């Protein structure tokens, strides 16, 4: 990876109000909703909801692991992140945050794809990010 900071000029666009109903995966559901809304790039502006169980990734490489939190009744305390297009041009979500279990224990990490089923609901607001074409550049560190 370059040691320079990549500056991506752009502007914010549409806001999209979303509800994911139960038993959908959090990551895949957010991606599907973004695609249906025609969002290629977006950021999370607000999110509240609950999960059946949670799987939160940590570390990298050989040190990578997953914290599993057993519900049901996992509250999503914070959820942040962004969506950017994958190689096929479909929105790919990078989401991280914190959750609490029914005993009020708190856990955090990256939401693992395919392992975070929505329990009651996820209410979410995404805001479109519109990169400026041809102006992408790097700035010296």
């Amino acid at each position, binding site marked *: 990876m370059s040691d320079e900071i990549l500056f991506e000029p752009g502007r914010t666009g549409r806001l999209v109000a979303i509800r994911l109903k*139960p038993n959908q995966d959090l990551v895949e559901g957010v991606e599907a909703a973004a695609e249906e809304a025609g969002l290629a790039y977006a950021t999370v502006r607000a999110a*509240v909801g609950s999960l*059946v169980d949670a799987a939160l990734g940590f570390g990298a490489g050989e040190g990578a692991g997953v914290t599993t939190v057993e519900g049901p009744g996992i509250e*999503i305390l*914070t959820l942040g992140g962004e969506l950017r297009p994958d190689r096929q041009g479909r929105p790919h979500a990078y989401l991280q945050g914190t959750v609490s279990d029914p005993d009020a224990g708190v856990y955090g990490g990256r939401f693992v794809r395919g*392992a975070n089923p929505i*329990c009651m609901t996820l*209410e979410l*607001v995404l805001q479109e990010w519109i990169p400026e074409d041809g102006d992408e550049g790097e700035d010296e560190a």
Partner: protein
Amino acid sequence: MRLLKHPGRPLQPRRLIAEARAGGEWRCLLPEGALLGDLAGRLAARGVEQAAIQLLGGAFARFEYRCGEPAEAGAGPLLDEGERRSLDGACPLVGGSAILGRGLDGGPRLHAHALVVGPDGVLAGGRLEPAGCRVGPDGLAVQVVALAGAGFAAAQDEETGATLFEPRVEGA
């Protein structure tokens, strides 16, 4: 991935989506002693009834919240809202967000989840009780983006049996 069977049948579509415009954006500082729930009324006075809110920083002096827990078997929702928990003393914010929309009665409804560091240094968080979360001496900073043309409205959800926010296009 474990899935749950809710009391009602799963209704289509599984994702509800409503596109909105930005109706203005503010960074707000709630003063010491204010309740988080005051924010809804103050925004309504500015004509903002639908918004996405990010909790940026500051601290609560009293923090009331709930953590959902499995309900006893029956025909109702699978989750109870859980017991009301409270922390008194300085509770610095770690993060959180909220959705401002319309309640079943048409009035403002604030659905907020957040994480704080409790006075004992232990992380705590859940679904906030806005009328029981009092801001501490340094205030509480939030960023509000108003949703124009669409937003959230509470509805009785047949599938879960709970009252939940759903995206709505204004005038639809």
